């Protein structure tokens, strides 16, 4: 895996890239340099806005619409990609430099079969005929450990799962046996359990063909598994670069250290709630369905005052559906939801204002959760006005108070639109909107999964503090066990619409586990560069042991 030769494959020197917003240009990448040798894997890490994707694309001589390379050079195997005419670049792209995008589901053309998209680059670049390329595809699908490699290529993208698509995309990138592949956050959109398989497949194939790669991610633990060297970026500036082991062991810069520190936060678990105390919310034997398809089966759990219950599971496990039942968006087929001991009407339309007010929700995607045409003041003020009937100065005072509570300066933020906020700030506004209703319980649906780690950390701390101040109960939906560690008191593990296991957090993180919980737990990447290797070995051993018995 560490195979380097003396002639650098890719050299980037003093690269400056600017982006345009409202007719003004501002720097996205500010004078970054890097060198990549043949067969080497470089990890680019940083938060969103660090310019790592822009840099990765620039390594292909490509800039997105609204961006331009203002100075510097990108030299790939002797060709300057910045000044090269489009035709020269097109000749290299796809054949000698390939790209694997963050979301394979979005990056595969929905109108064509996988195999046709695979063979396109080799045929167009003239490296092989369609038939040869199609045979090669089957071979590569096999190497990527895709199921049914012979036939999977004849499916359309939507017929293949996300993890498989990501592997198919890596296979596609390999089609012309490129010298360099840019991986742009290839596993970020995947569940932890799927991520393992993709990571393993990518590492395997890069190794096999001795392909150089730039691996872009915001997840330290992931990059630790993949890269020979790591470069840290912050707002378009290079922070530091070092060999992976050295970087993990002794980061030099404060920023890098702060990145490392994020993963250490954990909340002290509250003692188990008194059984006799009436839970704020009680989900009792709920079964629910979308149309004819049942998605929840006999789900029950309680949430007590000042407690945080984390509901954990992969996508499709029914976590969010449970939240929809609680909020009344999806009336259950069977079972009921009790709030402070009394049953809530199954449909939100028949709930009273007070019932609605007391259960609030914070959404995963702050982008779609905030009306882009309303100012922060309007968004936060509306529930105050709607539920509590405050007007005029009283309303303004209360909104200011709420903004202070979420640590945003009212004078600065009241008049802003969501588009003028950062991701973390948007999420804070979402929290303020929930708080404005003065609820007793808040459902947090993956509230941190779209955020960078440092920002997510801030949000979690804020929620933690608010719970103490306002006696709130939280239902925390997440697929990220690190988040669970950081915030939960109790944990409910769900799979396929059923509750697999539930209990106090400490109990959950202590073996023995339910096998599924075990799988979830073991799949969370760790900062050890050998973690993936060890894990795969361990799992293979287990499988062997299992088959022997």
């Amino acid at each position: 895996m560490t195979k380097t030769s003396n002639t650098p494959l890719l050299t980037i020197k003093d690269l400056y890239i600017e982006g345009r917003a409202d007719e003004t240009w501002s720097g996205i990448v500010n004078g970054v340099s890097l060198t990549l040798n043949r067969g080497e894997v470089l990890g680019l890490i940083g938060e969103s806005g660090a310019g790592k994707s822009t840099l990765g694309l620039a390594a292909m001589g490509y800039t997105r619409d609204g961006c331009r390379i203002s100075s510097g050079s990108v030299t790939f195997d002797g060709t300057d990609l910045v000044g090269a005419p489009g035709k020269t670049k097109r000749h290299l792209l796809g054949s000698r430099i390939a790209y694997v995008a963050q979301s394979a589901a979005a990056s595969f053309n929905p109108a064509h079969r996988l195999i046709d998209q695979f063979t396109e680059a080799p045929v167009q670049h003239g490296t092989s005929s369609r038939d040869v390329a199609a045979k090669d595809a089957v071979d590569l699908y096999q190497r990527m450990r895709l199921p049914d490699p012979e036939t999977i290529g004849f499916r359309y993208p939507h017929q293949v799962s996300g993890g498989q698509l990501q592997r198919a995309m890596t296979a596609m990138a390999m089609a012309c046996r490129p010298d360099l592949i840019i991986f742009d956050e290839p596993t970020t959109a995947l569940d932890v359990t799927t991520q393992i398989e993709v990571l393993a497949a990518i590492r395997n194939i890069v190794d096999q063909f001795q392909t150089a790669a730039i691996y872009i991610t915001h997840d330290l633990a992931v990059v630790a598994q993949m890269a020979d060297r790591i470069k840290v970026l912050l707002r378009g500036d290079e922070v530091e670069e070092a060999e992976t082991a050295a970087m993990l062991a002794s980061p030099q810069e404060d920023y890098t250290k702060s990145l490392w520190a994020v993963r250490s936060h954990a909340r002290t678990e509250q003692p188990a709630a008194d059984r006799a105390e009436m839970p704020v919310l009680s989900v009792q034997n709920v079964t629910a369905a979308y149309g004819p398809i049942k998605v929840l089966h006999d789900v029950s759990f309680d949430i007590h005052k000042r407690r945080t219950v984390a509901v954990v599971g992969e996508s499709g496990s029914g976590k969010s559906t449970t939240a929809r039942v609680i909020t009344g968006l999806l009336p259950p087929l069977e079972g009921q939801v009790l709030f402070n001991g009394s049953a809530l009407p199954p449909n939100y339309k028949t709930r009273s204002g007070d019932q609605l007010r007391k259960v609030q929700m914070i959404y995963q995607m702050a982008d779609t959760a905030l009306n882009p045409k309303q100012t922060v003041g309007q968004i936060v003020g509306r529930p105050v006005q709607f539920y509590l009937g405050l007007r005029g100065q009283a309303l303004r005072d209360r909104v200011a108070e709420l903004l202070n509570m979420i640590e945003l300066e009212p004078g600065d933020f009241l008049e802003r639109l969501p588009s003028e906020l950062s991701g973390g700030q948007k999420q804070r506004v979402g929290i303020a909107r929930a708080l404005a209703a003065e609820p007793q319980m808040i459902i947090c649906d993956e509230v941190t999964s779209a955020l960078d780690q440092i920002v997510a950390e801030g949000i979690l701390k804020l929620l933690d503090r608010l719970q103490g101040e306002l006696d709130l109960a939280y239902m925390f939906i997440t697929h990220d066990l690190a988040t669970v560690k950081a915030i939960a008191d109790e944990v409910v593990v769900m799979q396929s619409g059923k509750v697999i296991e539930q209990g106090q957090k400490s109990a959950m993180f202590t073996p023995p586990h339910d096998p599924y919980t075990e799988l979830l737990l073991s799949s969370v990447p760790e900062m050890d560069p050998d973690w993936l290797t060890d894990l795969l070995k361990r799992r293979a051993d287990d499988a062997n042991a299992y088959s022997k018995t």
Partner: protein
Amino acid sequence: MASSTPVWMILIYCTIAFGCAAACAFAFRTAVIASMPGQVSKLARSMPLSASFGALIILIYVFVALFAPWIAPFGEREVVGAQYLPWGGDYLLGTDDLGRDMFTRLIYGARNTVGIAFATTLLAFLGGAILGLLAAVVGGWIDELLSRIVDILMAIPALIFALLLLTIFGTSIVNMILVIALIDSTRVFRLARSVAMNIVVMDYIEAARLRGEGLGYLVVREILPNAAAPLIAEFGLRFCFVFLSISALSFLGLGIQPPTADWGSMVRNNATLITFGDVTPLLPAGAIALLTVAVNFVVDWMLHRASGLKE
């Protein structure tokens, strides 16, 4: 006709016209950037030349429409001289078949045509957009019912439907506005509904619903602002099509008729002249075309902004 003018001369004329248009647009944009407060100035700075040209033309039309009585040298219906006087002299663009000043008629035409088109489009949007948004938000049988009604209305050819309604209710300007608005509102309904369908699945709409917000708030405060861009773009197009509808109706004898000056009918009434190479009907037709192009340039720019493409 064209045969007497060499092709290259036409090309030169076109180039000169194009250059002048670009220069005007540039000057206009510069003036707006310099003179207007922050928000507008910022908007103007992001305008391509085509859009600022469009905006300039629209402003000129609005100005002409608003101040027609002060700009026009004669009265709208005033018979000022002999028929078909040539261009120049007291009558800038000559006189029409009744001896009315053509230039004056064109200016009043701006007022009537743009006014009628605006009123019609506005009505069509008030009806169509609100019902369309409502259908998307409420869903269920109301959506089904409204959609079916719209389907049925759209299944009747627009021109013939207009012909029937105008014959039943009479061809006053008010009726024409109402009828064209009704027909256009079905098209607006479909657009508004489909746009709103994409918005109602947003989390902030769910949040508002869960808050227990009423229908009015949902439609007016939450959805409408977000559906504005495509609706405004459609507004621009519909606005232009109203001229065509009026002029098609006047072809069937149901348009706005003299003495009211409107471009659609002016094209119709003078159209025969084009057979003899007389360019008179090109004036009102050109006025419509220029406005259409201008409006669409602005619309293109707005859609471009809304699409988030940055090239």
